[in-house]
């Protein structure tokens, strides 16, 4: 029989751990002897054994413990929640795995959660871990990454145009924060890497909202206009209940289009702060688009009928927005003025040319992504053109 000699270590100061370790190594019915010199050891041993379901016989200052069956019974029907590696993701994790870490041993009888997104096919991409790692490595600090203190002064109406564009960007990035956040709370945590991507995506948008707000208020004390048409367009995203469709409309079409817009703004920025906030935001948005594309591509491969649902979603949204202004004249004019840089006729003409090319680039980007998802050239071209005039 093994003897655990606690010597002068008190039961409650770590002695219990040593005893527990020794008991773990026993089969039910196996015994250990415990000795020690601290006062009242036998009192604690008896009470502890009674609570743990072990038998106890005192002798000297300690006693003999015979292992009861309960210790093994608690874990008898426990199951391993997949495997911690990305390869260990299961197709449909049970709701009872709940919040347990992927790969943990889950006690039977754990409460049943009600996560709506529990199918691997709906949400998973093998790229999620890589995209999350890239996102974590490329987080930037708004305080130090942007030259807030650079000296510049824009003509008043160019400054107003920048403020209007920033106001519009904040509104759109708010939608881009809320949509993944909503699905994040619905996702079974078993899909850990996807959960992390959605979380960092929300954090990215929070930062974008911060820097766009700060740029807008850099030289002005109030923000620009928010149009009903713009909000009607975004509301269709916020209201979309299906993860695949929301992800498609937001990340592939919306943020894909925004990516082109942000690079355009960075290239044509009238000041270094606008350039930096748009460039840094664009870098983040590229990852959001990459994640949307990656999981939707895998979803389409597993379920080709998804393409039909996505197509219907574009057509439905187009119909819903057909009778709204959609097109944001204030933003369009502001973009033109920023691209022109002055009220000079030649500059305005050149600015208009740039904005026209921007719209064509946006459309081409959407068409290419749609084709990559598996739509035919004809479908891709048609659906790209049906995208909201609000861009997002």
């Amino acid at each position, binding site marked *: 029989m093994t003897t655990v000699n606690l010597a002068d270590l*008190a*039961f*409650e*100061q770590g002695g219990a751990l040593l005893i527990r370790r020794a008991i773990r190594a026993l089969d039910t019915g196996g015994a250990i002897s415990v000795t020690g010199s601290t*006062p*009242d050891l036998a*009192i*604690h041993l*008896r*009470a*502890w054994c*009674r*609570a*743990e*379901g072990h038998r106890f016989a005192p002798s000297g200052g300690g006693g003999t413990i015979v292992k*009861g*069956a*309960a210790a093994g*019974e*608690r874990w*008898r*029907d426990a199951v391993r929640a997949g495997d911690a590696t990305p390869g260990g993701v299961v197709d449909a994790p049970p709701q009872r795995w709940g919040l347990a870490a992927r790969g943990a041993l889950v*006690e*039977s*009888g754990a409460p049943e959660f009600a996560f709506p997104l529990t199918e691997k096919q709906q949400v998973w991409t093998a790229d999620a871990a890589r995209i999350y790692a890239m996102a974590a490595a490329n987080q930037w600090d708004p305080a130090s990454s942007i030259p807030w203190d650079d000296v510049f002064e824009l003509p008043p109406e160019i400054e107003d145009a920048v403020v209007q564009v920033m106001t519009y960007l904040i509104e759109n990035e708010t939608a881009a924060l809320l949509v993944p956040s909503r699905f994040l709370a619905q996702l079974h945590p078993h899909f850990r890497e996807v959960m992390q991507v959605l979380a960092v995506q929300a954090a990215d948008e929070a930062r974008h909202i911060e820097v766009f707000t700060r740029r807008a208020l850099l030289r002005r004390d109030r923000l620009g206009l928010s149009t009903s048409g713009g909000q009607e367009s975004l509301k269709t995203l916020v209201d979309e209940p299906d993860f695949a469709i929301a992800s498609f409309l937001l990340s592939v079409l919306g943020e894909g289009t925004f990516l082109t817009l942000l690079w355009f703004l960075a290239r044509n920025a009238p000041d270094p702060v606008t350039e930096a906030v748009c460039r840094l935001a664009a870098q983040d948005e590229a990852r959001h688009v990459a994640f949307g594309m990656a999981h939707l591509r895998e979803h389409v491969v597993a379920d080709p009928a998804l393409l039909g649902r996505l197509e219907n979603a574009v057509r439905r949204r187009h119909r819903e927005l057909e009778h709204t202004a959609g097109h944001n004249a204030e933003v369009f004019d502001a973009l033109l003025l920023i691209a022109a840089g002055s009220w000079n006729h030649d500059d305005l003409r050149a600015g208009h040319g740039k904005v026209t090319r921007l719209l064509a680039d946006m459309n081409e980007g959407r068409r290419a992504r749609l084709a990559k998802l598996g739509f035919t050239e004809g479908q891709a071209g048609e659906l790209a053109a049906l995208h909201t005039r609000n861009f997002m």
Partner: protein
Amino acid sequence: MNHNTLILGAVAYDPKVVTIWDGFQQYFADHGLPFDYVLYTNYERQVAAHMAGHIHTAWNSPLAWLETERLAARAGRRAEAIAMRDSDRDLVSTILVRAADSATSPEDLRGQRVAVGAADSPQATLIPLEVLAQHGLIAGRDFEAVLFDVLPGKHGDHIGGERDAVRALVKGETGAACILDANYGLFLKEGTLPAGAVRSILQTPLFDHCNFTVLDGGPEAEIARFRELLLGMSYADARVRRLLDLEGLKQWLPGRTEGYALLAAAADRNGYLDRTIAGIAS
């Protein structure tokens, strides 16, 4: 309403009691035993209800068991303890003093103030005072017993009284405190008792705690099924493990009554039990 429903009485000493009995009610229903329960605020009312036939079985404290047994005997009836927790067997209470004090035996408590639990607590009051009496120290004559009376009527099920008793000891307001062995460990673990602050000078003999009590004349088939289902519960079964954890056991065992002799002696000292029974009967 099913007339074959077995009705249990339990004392609501903590909100978790509802969770426990709702859970067991579901378990019994799943196994074909219609079961319901009634909660009482104190054991004396539960014992009275049991004697009056309002309930078929009572989840009784050891003192409530003695009250029922005594009342049944007076009425020419028979009480039986049909099951108990594994953790109801072989309890010990201990009398603690401050580690730095000189006391080493009960005799050293003469003239002191001794903290005990609720007046009706078997483990923190009645049994320790009986053991001291057997050592020749009578409360009120040889030392002052200071009651920490949290929730009287609940027979010490609420451990607040024992916690207050050890706090009084640590603060120097009393020279000793009487508590259950399991609570000694708990109070050390939660920090109510600083490590090394106290030591035991006396342990009581082993005694038993709660049981399910039935009286003759009850619905025998339902009571037999109830007992069979209790004894058949396995800690490996996730449906009941949660409830067993809440109720503080690993396994239900058959009832036994020899572990109540010490409490019976304590309760009969100075006519305590007779007075309580008279109160119930009135």
